[in-house]
């Protein structure tokens, strides 16, 4: 016999504020969307190889897709940490499936995600306009260059070649990550599945009717 029983009491008022801290539901959708992207990344690697062998440097144009996960998820959730978590989750899948960059995928993911994260943080996670997401895509692209340099893939190219690569990569980050990420987010919002996320909620001025 228990003399007293434990109860939980939930009391709530209508003024519940939107927390800026990610909750588990948001972590979960970030991880799953990113992992689906991760599988796509893995496939993209093979496409990249074929293109690379056939027409070197043209691959820079498709490089940007590798940053799209963080843009999609950050654009949807609009909270700190999401962009970074996203790229790491995508890299995790890519690595386990045996992607061509092996363990360095994780390093790439971490740094590229962090770069996008910095941009969003710079706008205090309040602005997610086209300009901001494009900038975030380009930041990821920019961040990938030093890693490539240290791994030695591009450090020894002729200057002209190097500049061309960097320009193309930034462009690709802007379009295939930034623009595409926003487009996918907006299309998803239309299906109604994002109604409880900030992407949709921040545009509505609804008030509780009680």
């Amino acid at each position: 016999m228990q003399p007293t029983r434990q109860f939980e009491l939930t009391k709530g008022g209508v003024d519940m504020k939107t927390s800026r801290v990610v909750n588990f539901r948001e972590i979960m959708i970030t991880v799953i969307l990113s992992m689906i992207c991760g599988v796509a990344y893995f496939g993209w690697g093979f496409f990249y190889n074929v293109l690379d062998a056939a027409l070197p440097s043209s691959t820079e144009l498709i490089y940007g897709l590798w940053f799209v996960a963080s843009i999609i998820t950050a654009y949807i959730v609009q909270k700190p940490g999401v962009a970074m978590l996203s790229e790491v989750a995508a890299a995790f899948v890519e690595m386990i499936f045996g992607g061509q960059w092996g363990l360095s995928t994780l390093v790439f993911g971490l740094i590229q995600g962090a770069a996008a994260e910095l941009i969003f943080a710079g706008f205090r996670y309040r602005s997610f306009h086209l300009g901001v997401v494009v900038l975030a895509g380009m930041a990821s692209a920019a961040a990938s260059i030093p890693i490539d340099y240290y791994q030695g893939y591009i450090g020894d190219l002729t200057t002209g070649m190097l500049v061309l690569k960097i320009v193309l990569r930034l462009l690709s980050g802007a379009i295939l990550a930034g623009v595409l990420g926003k487009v996918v987010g907006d299309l998803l919002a239309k299906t109604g599945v994002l109604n409880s996320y900030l992407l949709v909620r921040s545009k509505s001025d609804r008030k509780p009717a009680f």
Partner: protein
Amino acid sequence: MNTLTSKTPFLASEGVSVQFFDRDTPVLREMNVEIAKNEAVLLLGPSGSGKSTLLQVLSGIIPRSIEAWFKGTVIRPERVGVMFQDPDAQFCMLTVEDEIAFSLENRLVPRAQMRGIIEQVMRDVRLEVPLTTPIRELSGGLKQRLALACLLALEPEVLFVDEPTAQLDPLNTQLVIEDLRRLKGQKTLVMIEHKLDGVVEWVDRVLLFNATGQLVAQGNPREILRDHAQMIREYGIWQPKLWPVTWDEMLATVKHPLADRLEHQLAVQANSIGATLASDGKLLEQTQSDPHVSKAPILEVREASLRYKNGHVVWQGLNVSVQPGEWVAILGPNGAGKSTFLKLVGGLIEPTKGQVQVKGKTLSRYRTPELYDTVGFVFQNPEHQFIADTVFEEVAFGGKVAGWAQERIEQESVQLLTDFRLLDLRDKNPFTLSQGQKRRLSVAGMLLKRQEVLLLDEPTFGQDAATTAELLQRMQERNEAGTTILMATHDVELVAEYATRVLVIGEGKLLYDGRPHALFQQPDLLQRASLTAPLAYEYQLRRREQAAKDQGGHDSAKHEEPALVGRNSSEQKEGDLRV
């Protein structure tokens, strides 16, 4: 967390209002509900009535996991568990033991005690698989029992249950419901369940909600279902098939009205071939025919086998020949390859051996567009078919691709939208529709081209009574107009009523091919296929058993628990649940 006085209710909501961020109106308004310890309560209402929301509020999911505007007070015991609908979306680990351990880890149970508890809860739900079994190898029914085991590991005082059988075949539905029933009196149960059979018999109280989220009535099930029968029917809630009548009562009474009705059904089904039994002599002639004679078949499967790369044989040696105008139901346990069979016939997979012909021409010789002008396919998940941004475009798509004139597209699409009560929604995004609307749209979208053969993969799955009746009505119209229908389903009542022929797929082969009437008189076969008999046939079986018993001079007054036809005897073992 608070320690409250003994006067506080066990489980209650006091003045709770909830409004989701994407809605203009609250789902719940000033809701007051009180539930006593060890009570079994059923929440009943149409979709959108807020019963799920109430369950989420009482269990604490709102506002912990689902954010919403929330006002009021909820009192609940510290330990509760929630069982959900989707068997695939409640786990995070690879194996059975790790998954149950996850519950224990959350409760800070010391590691040394875990193994014992895991084994105990598995016994409680009769989950007789090795501890290290990967979860993905479990069937839907076993996954739901694992989910229950994971909840029992939480030692909850209240168990919330949100339609756990919605995705299960008939036999597994019964098993899960039985598990819950055995918990009655030991745990407080708060349930949402659409299939009332096997549930209304034993719950203590029913709370009935209307479409606007108000609690209309509460009380014992018999009164609620009697006093609000009209409303319940209008809301499209599935009525229990037998209850409040019991088998004993029916068998003991001479000329019981339900018995009469069932006898009539039986007579009708025995003499004919299903729904088209009517006075329609022409159809009767077609469908009663032996597959080996008569006209050229519209569809023919010869010696078809399918084996996956990993060596798993889905089925082998299938021979099926379908005449134009037949309504063929495909039955079988979850995972037996019913959908796969439809895909074979629809040219979406190739058999490893054998061949399929549509209208006398082998599938591989068809061009894709040509094939799908003849064969339509309604997929299990409506969303998979959606390709347009609006409901109208979704239906009109087929006409556009086929290059029809604009007026014709407009006219025929509008007609279909009207038939399926979707016209008001014509400019909405298909993904934003309700479950029932999505299903109706997916069927409507497939009918525009008037294909001669229509393949449907569990079209009534998870639908309420109203949507199901409506869909069947539309399909029957098509069937009467000459469309051949092949439909995978779990719903035996539907098969008894509509199908002219049944294929039972199981154990890697065709277990049965013939009229529904003959199938439902074979309890052994039904059990092998994880099926239950339709009510009328179960009645017939019990009637016969009773007659045999009476002849044997046994005491006919002997009370018998309503046993279920087709239940696996090994799973009938008693397993007492822990308090």
